[in-house]
């Protein structure tokens, strides 16, 4: 075995491990707290039952959750969303790049924590919102997008990012 290869055998793990250390050390919460509020893009779509939804219909405090029947992590976060909806948090689903048949079947099978789900098969609204995949969640307060997380909604993300913002908004009202 020649020298560069021997060197590489030691160097490669060092690179890999330091990469992971960096990822770990970038505090997750920090990334989300820097979020700049923006207006909800205007849209006209239907919900999964075929009722028209406009941007104006999303007023007050709403949690928008991007989901799809093809998304496995959505299934993982589902019980947590159900818990939130039991605690009277209004969750609006954004059904992303899915077919309405599959989506409705998924909701029937797993339960429906959403007050309604916007049907966005081509991902138009999702694109304007800056969605990159499913699941993702946004916090809307009076038509302003004030928080955005990618990936599973967890207890920790809920408590550190969303809940304080909601509390603040409720108090100012």
């Amino acid at each position, binding site marked *: 075995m020649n020298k560069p290869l021997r060197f590489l*055998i030691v160097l490669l793990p060092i690179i890999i*491990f330091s*990469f992971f*250390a960096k990822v*770990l050390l970038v505090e997750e919460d920090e990334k989300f707290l820097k979020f700049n509020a923006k207006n909800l893009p205007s849209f006209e779509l239907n919900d999964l039952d075929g009722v028209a939804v406009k941007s104006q219909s999303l007023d007050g405090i709403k949690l928008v959750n991007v989901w799809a029947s093809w998304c496995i992590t959505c299934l*993982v976060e589902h*019980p947590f969303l159900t818990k939130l909806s039991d605690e009277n948090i209004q969750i609006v689903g954004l059904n992303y790049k899915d077919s309405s048949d599959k989506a409705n079947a998924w909701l029937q*099978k797993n*339960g429906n924590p959403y007050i309604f789900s916007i049907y966005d098969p081509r991902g138009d609204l999702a694109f304007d919102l800056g969605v990159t995949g499913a699941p993702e969640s946004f916090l809307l307060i009076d038509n302003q997008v004030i928080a955005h997380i990618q*990936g599973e909604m967890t207890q920790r993300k809920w408590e550190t990012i969303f809940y304080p913002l909601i509390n603040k908004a409720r108090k100012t009202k």
Partner: protein
Amino acid sequence: MIGEISHFLSLSAVVIFCLILIFNFFFIFDKTHSNQLSLSLRMFNQACWLVFISFGMYVYLSINDDFSIAYIASHSNSQLPIFYKISSIWSAHEGSMFLWIVFLTVWSILFINSLHRNHPLKRITLLMLSLIILGFLLFLLLTSNPFERILPFGAIEGADINPVLQDPALAIHPPMLYLGYVGFVISFSFITAYLFHGNFELEWEKDIKNWSLVAWIFLTIGITLGSWWAYYELGWGGYWFWDPVENVALMPWLAATAFMHSLYASSKSNVLKTWTMFLGILIFALSLFGAFIVRSGIIDSVHSFANDPQRGLYLLIFSGLITLLALGIFAYRVPSLNVSRFVISGSKESYLSMNNILMITSIFSIFLGVTYPLIIEAVNGEKVSIGPPYYNTIFAPLILIASIFIMASLDSIWQRSKPFKSIVSSIIVPMILSLIFTYVVWHVTAVFSILSYIGIFSGSLILFSYLYRILSNFFYKKFINIGSAVAHIGFGLLFIAISFNSILSYEKNLNLAPGETILIDESIEEFSFDDIKVLKASNHDVISVEVSLLQDGNNIFLNPQKRKYATRGQITTESSIHASILKDTYLTIGDQLENGSWTFALKINYFIKWIWFSASLMVMGMLITIFKKKAI
């Protein structure tokens, strides 16, 4: 009180392991060491026993519902059967880490005491093992202490084990998997000790051979059980999801498989020794990496434990140091190893080394699949997801090439090149049979998917080569290694089963009211929703549905359920499966609709049983290899 004693015993073990390391630190380069060795050995044995007793007491606490201990209070419940009270210990992070350490000590104590009294590598192996156990014990006690009390008043009732984990397969899946994962600590420490020691005349292959084979068997059983559990318990109808946690179990498995082949080759000839050592170190390094991925919460997954950067950082630093230590010694010693560099092309070891390269390639591909989303996110903040299409596309050609090498290696010999002409005859028959078989499958099913057909073709290449070999053994008394043949036939069958499963299976969503009967397709002529009942069980309510099917002229009764667990309020779906040799009829119930009817998901999964069967063939092949006298 017992909780404190148990905690204290673990702490004492930490102290003793520290003492062993400190005490030996001064003599580390000293090769005349008989006194230190016998003392260290006694201390090592005592420390291991302290860990066992501590764990035994913890099990006792869990059985006797000591809910003043925070971990037990949040994962067990007085209503649980004893079996699940015990398995609740490994249903979450802290307890499963404890179990991991117990297994680590079990393997270590058995291996150390099995070595000859004056084995020259004994002391350094012992030190390496102590270092690893110590690192994990400190991790347990510092960052995830399972002994923590709820003070001043304990909980009156426990919060219950997660219902999807209340299942026999899942109760034994983690222990099996962990036994496999940590079993490779032996090859890891022993190879490191060998390289550190520097006397390359020593034999080391045969001391770790059987240990590694046993660890491989546990790992295989653990992965298969996990897959089986996911199939019937999660109700998603699949058996493998390329989830990060599955991937981090598959990587050590692939490395271990490569290691086994390489170990076999290096005991037959002087080549591939470097490969073997590297792989032996790599397996445990990948196990450590897996522990880091799962327990740091760095990747969202079905399995991930609570997300805690502090734990992640500790594990990362610890596993990084251990891995670097071993790889550093390896890189330092490699030039002085006296191994022949040249592998004769066309010899058996040449094919084996080609497959080593393929297995390393697949490990790397999985590694990339697991880490790529993280890399992209770190670079430009985007989230990408890598799913089954990536893995399927990468694996299909790798398996095709591997199967060709497996086939070629069957008729080749050690250390000598065999002219291509002489192996052609034994290649051509399986090749033609596989082509015919693949064509027939295509003709009969009339479905085409390039990846699945590659799978079927590769699988049948392996299968037919070995069957052909067995036949020629029978008629011409050609040599055959039975263990290897059984394991490889299992391997071939696995690909055929997976590919058949992916082209034949289908799914139907149904909507029926109680008492209704409908026609589904030619194979299922009647689907009747006979009855629905609400029952009460010890810790959950059950909605139980009875469905009868007329499938292929047979009457089948299915009983899917929905359970609502009292303490956690969680609802689980219990699928009902009717399994025949070729296909599984897999039924789950959904929700009740407003008009009183219920939704059902009916899946027809082909060849699922064959997947479990092929895994058990592989395990069986390995067992034969262990118990056969003449092996290696």
